[in-house]
């Protein structure tokens, strides 16, 4: 028997499926294929299948860079949450007319190129930059301290860049929170800390998860920020991959790194959703 649904071919699915295949699946397959090739003498790709690229990733030097990237991204996520939560809460509780203005202020930085904004941070963080000048003229410090080209500078840059991705989902979750539920917890003997951990945080959980993923995932692969603000020792995995493709011209090894990064992020996200995402505020 012919039913109306199964009998006809769903033509409408073709355009999105085609574009997804062309721009997502196909490049991924290409990268995956290249990761099993080897580098030619002058930087080309030689199609002799090998696992050598994957094996060389397990060099302690590269593993260290992987580990650093995951760790820096995790730290960025935590700092974004610490700054982003009060901000999102404030906006969610602000009068309607103010909400629009405050949200606009969060989004405005996106109107300027990310690279330009990162250069701006270099001017702020330099030894003779804005921050040191202000602190010294205020008499808080008497020697300029070195901030640019350190891990701290990279974290500052990453937090600055990805904070809106934490604030917006948190705002969406907190805005839906009924204020009388908070009063109910207060009435039922919960102090400020318990009100936060037992009621506000669990109810904001979808926002916390979304915000954390939106900050963590791009932070792991970030390369502009560590490239400009980080020192020679602050290399992150994004820089390494970029280097393999553009400097060393070892595309097969760059492809292998990309794939391992993808798997590492997937595993980290899975771990977060399974444990951190649910257990810490059950």
């Amino acid at each position, binding site marked *: 028997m012919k039913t109306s649904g199964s009998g006809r071919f769903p033509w409408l699915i073709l355009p999105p499926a085609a574009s997804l295949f062309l721009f997502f699946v196909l490049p991924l397959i290409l990268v995956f294929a290249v990761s099993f090739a080897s580098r030619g003498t002058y930087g080309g790709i030689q199609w002799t299948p090998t696992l050598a690229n994957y094996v060389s990733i397990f060099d302690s030097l590269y593993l260290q860079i992987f580990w650093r990237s995951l760790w820096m991204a995790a730290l960025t996520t935590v700092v974004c949450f610490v700054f982003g939560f009060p901000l999102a809460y404030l906006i969610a509780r602000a009068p309607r007319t103010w909400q629009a203005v405050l949200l606009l202020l969060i989004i405005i930085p996106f109107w300027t190129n990310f690279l330009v904004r990162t250069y701006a941070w270099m001017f702020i963080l330099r030894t003779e930059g804005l921050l040191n000048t202000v602190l010294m003229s205020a008499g808080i410090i008497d020697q300029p301290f070195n901030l640019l080209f350190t891990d701290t500078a990279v974290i500052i840059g990453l937090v600055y860049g990805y904070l809106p991705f934490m604030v917006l989902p948190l705002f969406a979750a907190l805005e839906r929170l009924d204020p*009388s539920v908070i*009063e109910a917890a*207060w*009435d039922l003997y*919960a102090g400020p800390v318990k009100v936060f951990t037992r009621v506000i945080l669990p109810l904001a959980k979808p926002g916390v998860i979304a915000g954390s993923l939106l900050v963590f995932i791009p932070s792991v692969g970030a390369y502009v920020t560590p490239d400009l603000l980080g020192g020679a020792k602050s290399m992150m995995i994004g820089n390494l991959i970029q280097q393999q493709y553009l400097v060393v011209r070892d595309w097969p090894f760059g492809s292998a790194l990309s794939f391992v990064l993808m798997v590492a992020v997937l595993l980290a996200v899975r771990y977060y959703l399974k444990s951190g995402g649910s257990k810490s505020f059950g």
Partner: protein
Amino acid sequence: MTENSVELCEVTKRHGSTIAVDRLSLLVRRGEFFSLLGPSGSGKTTTLRLLAGFEQPDTGKILIEGLSMERIPPNRRPVNLVFQNYALFPHLTVERNVAFGLEMKNVAPAEIAVRVAKTLDLVRLSGKVERFPSQLSGGEQQRVALARALVNHPAVLLLDEPLGALDKQLRQEMEVELKALQERIGITFICVTHDQEEALTMSDRLAVLNHGRLLQVGTPEEVYSAPATAFVADFIGVSNGLSGRVQDVDGDHVRIAVDGIGVLCSPSLPGLSAGRSVRITIRPELLRLSGEYEPADGYQNQLNVRIAKAIYSGSEMQYLLTLPNNLTWKARVPNAGGRAKRFHAGESAYVKWQAGEAVPLLE
């Protein structure tokens, strides 16, 4: 220990430029069902929030169980609030919602389990412990909110329009149930409502508020039969009124001249003297109708009226009467199984009442 559960002394609270609560003094006795009745904006909800501790009075004192509540936050007050929208925790089951207060007070888990089970039994929700609030009906959510507050054995239970969100039939059931529950557990209930019927049915005593001021406190019967002001008379059920001037005082009674009507007799008030403006009010169910004039003594009032509308509503007839001065009154006459004389729109009739049935109010 005092016999008063809650004392408010000259409490004033402003919200910006408006006075929400204006020099309010109240005593609520231990174990009574007390209602705060008033229209929206009367300050009844603010009063409740002052008692719960979400707001602090600008001036005046609040004592609960004899203890000053000055600067005591909600989490350290011996009261619990049942919210108007219930404010259940959507991420917790019924059982965990009810256990919340006890967990916050660090009660032993074994005791929590016993008390939660007992309280859920009390509100007849034992079968729904594992449900989430979103899986419950409005009436069930209301009972969870009640259980979540009662399980803590508060000295005073505060209820903010507890039945407001329920449909009419369920509301009437819950009125009786809530009152029975309160009598069984003996906790002081303070209930905010704008529904006079609800307040009259459930309360031991009630306070009528308007514009942040206390107008009258008393038992439902006192407030209903002897309203202190014209506002109370109107707010507690529909009242008929007429304004006039005192002609003379005769012991317990006064005669009042009303323009376009004549002279009416009413009980006296302290301080009444000839010439004072006065308003008499009388309840629609106290009026009697008859077809012809009946000679009577001086303590009976009788007015010739025209029936403007006759509405059949089952147990009684509701008549709209046009008075000689063109004012409209309402009368409610029991049908008594069809034995009562029926009037029709356009007919002329006599409306009568005993002088003692009217309530005089100073204007």
